[in-house]
């Protein structure tokens, strides 16, 4: 199977290079603040992988990023740029939160969590399906539609929460009655205080399922063919529109499931703005992970580490420095990733 055509050195070299470049830029920035790079990176590692709380927070952040990263990667494999993971994530979280309120309180948590998870997938999937359908039917640019839909969906959710569903004096919905997902802290005290929860296993399972889908199934074979060479796929009897629609539907559903990390695993309610950019960050995660599910898990951990590490080093250098480093990683990978060039070329062609 064509999986083998992916060479490991080709897959790993660009992200490794990007990381090296980011480290060098980071050194320069730290020196500019009059600190020792070794000292700062030491604190960063200690605050993320060195203690149970920091590690838990890193895993928690990585969980959502795995979902939004996959949400960008699957459509990108089909040749579509899904910029809408932010609103797909919010819609998924909202659907899970509402389902959690509606379900009877006595329902066993695994069953209730499963129902909420399905609701999240449907919520995110619906938001992803709209640009997919418009692309399939009318050839509307998915980039523009997903960006615009981010505003529409987020505004709609804000309105409905503010107008109908919020708890007084807050911007969140009522706490869910059933479907809360246990935190790791419930099993080992070491993780106490961190938000890491069993959603991580859901995210890893989804990554494995995405890998299987992409590289082992007929659907994945067709989806990748459409992304690599739509004309050849069409000649092979693969309907382009239906494949695009399916890719966006799956992408939206994946982002939507990411919403349960916060809603079921952490706060137990939907809150306005909980995504706070993790959807957009999914684009970077997918690019750095080279659209490969295993790569996405690794790059989600990287971005989660930088984000959490920014908090750890905030005392001696501004945490915005870590955001600069994230941007450097993204730029370095984007320049070297052939996928980006191909998709840009293809979208330039279809929009011409």
């Amino acid at each position, binding site marked *: 199977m064509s999986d083998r055509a992916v060479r490991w050195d080709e897959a790993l070299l660009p992200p490794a290079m990007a990381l090296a470049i980011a480290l060098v830029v980071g050194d320069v920035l730290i020196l500019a603040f009059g600190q020792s790079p070794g000292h700062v990176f030491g604190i960063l590692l200690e605050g993320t992988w060195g203690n149970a709380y920091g590690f838990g927070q890193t895993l928690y952040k990585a969980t959502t990023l795995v979902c939004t990263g996959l949400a960008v990667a699957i459509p990108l494999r089909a040749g579509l740029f899904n910029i809408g993971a932010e609103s797909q994530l919010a819609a998924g979280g909202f659907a899970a939160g509402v389902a959690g309120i509606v379900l009877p309180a006595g329902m066993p948590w695994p069953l209730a969590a499963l129902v909420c998870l399905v609701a999240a997938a449907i919520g995110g999937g619906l938001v992803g399906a709209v640009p997919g359908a418009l692309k399939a039917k009318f050839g509307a640019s998915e980039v523009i539609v997903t960006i615009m839909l981010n505003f529409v969906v987020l505004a709609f959710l804000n309105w409905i929460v503010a107008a109908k569903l919020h708890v007084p004096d807050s911007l969140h919905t009522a706490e869910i009655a059933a479907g809360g997902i246990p935190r790791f802290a419930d099993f080992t005290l070491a993780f106490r205080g961190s938000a890491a929860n069993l959603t991580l296993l859901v995210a890893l399972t989804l990554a494995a399922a995405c890998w299987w889908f992409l590289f082992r199934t007929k659907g994945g074979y067709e989806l990748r063919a459409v992304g690599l060479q739509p004309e050849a796929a069409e*000649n092979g009897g693969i309907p382009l529109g239906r494949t695009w629609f399916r890719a966006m539907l799956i992408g939206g559903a994946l982002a939507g499931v990411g919403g349960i990390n916060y809603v079921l695993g952490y706060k137990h309610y939907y809150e306005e703005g909980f995504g706070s950019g993790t959807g957009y960050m999914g684009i970077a995660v997918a690019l750095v992970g080279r659209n490969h599910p295993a790569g996405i898990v690794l790059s989600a951990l990287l971005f989660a580490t930088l984000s959490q590490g920014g908090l750890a080093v905030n005392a001696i250098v501004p945490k915005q420095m870590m955001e600069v480093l994230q941007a450097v990683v993204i730029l370095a990978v984007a320049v070297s990733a052939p996928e980006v060039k191909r998709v840009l070329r293809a979208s330039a062609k279809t929009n011409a």
Partner: protein
Amino acid sequence: MNEPAIALSGIAKSFGPVQAIRNASLTIANSEIHALMGENGAGKSTLMRVLAGMFTPDGGSAHVEGRDVTGWDTKAAIAAGVGMVHQHFMLVPTLTVAENVMLGREMTKGVSLDRAGAEDAVRALCERTGLAVDPARRVADLSVGEAQRVEILKVLFRGARILILDEPTAVLSPPEVQELWRVLRTLRANGGTVVLITHKLDEVIDISDTITVMRAGETVGRMATAGTTPSDIARAMVGREVSLAKRVASGVVVPPQATPRFEVRDLSVRGPTRARAVDHVSFTVQAGEIFGIAGVEGNGQTELIEALAGLRSCESGSILLDGRAIQSCVVSERIDLGLAHIPEDRHLRGLVLDYSIADNLIMGRQHQYAGAWSLDGARVAANAGAQVAKFDIRPADATLPARALSGGNQQKIVIARELGGERWPSVILASQPTRGVDVGAIEFIHARLRAARDAGAAVVLVSADLGEVIALSTRVAVMYGGTFVTIVNGDDATPLALGPWMTGAIKSGDAKAGTATAGAA
């Protein structure tokens, strides 16, 4: 004065790990037409680009008129009178012929361009060389043949005495080719030297004085054209004996069946610009017949085949396969009904270049390999192993991406997929099936198409290579301006008979006159 015009010796050039030319030597006398022959990828164009100053050789030396010019640049080459006409035109379509010709060497009158002066200069050049084209016309309005003349004019205007032409006849109809030959002979008579890069054997016999053959980056033979036969050249090009595409009278008369295998009724198709590209075309193809469609490219052949394959929607009309209307079937349904398609552009439609050979071999048939949860990898691999062996695809490693293969082997993947199944397809749409593949692969692909025909398939063959259409077809249609202007029996099809139809010199309106001409030829 007996210095050769060009003397290249021991030229080597590599691009990264690819050694394009390793040991190429070439001597061309003054005032001769020299043909540089070789299969695709033999290194002809690369060698000539070294001569024209576009590439710096890694080794060897180049002399022009006795002067050592090794490693010069294009500017120096043009100054020394060496000019190259490329396969792909580099003209500005919105400018006039004269403006294009003087581009880079603008004639001025004070601060403004001297358009009238340029037109006069170009007109004079046209008269001297016999290249007939109106200097005041816009390039966008020219035919392909005329655009090529402009390219040649451009090079001559800059004072070229040594003219290199890269595959000049690929886009020309037979009368245009004759016209070009006339121009080249005039140039030679005026003391010019011409190098012609080509892989078409009969052309070389027609026009050249001397031939140099390249194979795998090396020059392997130099011969005087007089006394050389096409098979001699083919043997030098391929390195072994090949049987050239010759018309083999099948001797089989296909009886018309009540329900033809494949029938197209009154089909109209719009092209990419929404203009009607196929205009009310009707034809039938019986089982065991190859129906050839000849014509200069861009006369609707692409749109016709795409519509038949289901890749382009029909404006009106119907397509019947074994009597069943398929014009509203999607591509996958047509494949399942036994319609095979060899697309004209294998890099665009024929193959997913980044997919492995094995994955490309199941494209369009992937549902046959799908299990409940996954594609059956073992069966995909088994199919690939069998096809690679049966069609001699090289290298024989089915996990390699299709991109890594040569053009001929890539085309074999397409042929294996479309014609290598357990059952023969009912209808085969073969569009430019041998474009850009080497002589050995051409022989093989022709044999497969004949075998499919003999097994009862109806074959629709579109080719820009008139020789190929004539060699294979039971009947030949000529497509011009979106319609079939004539349909003749394969035995009556000759370049001379079809040529006037291809250029539109005879229109369907003069059908009687046309038939008379075809009969007389």
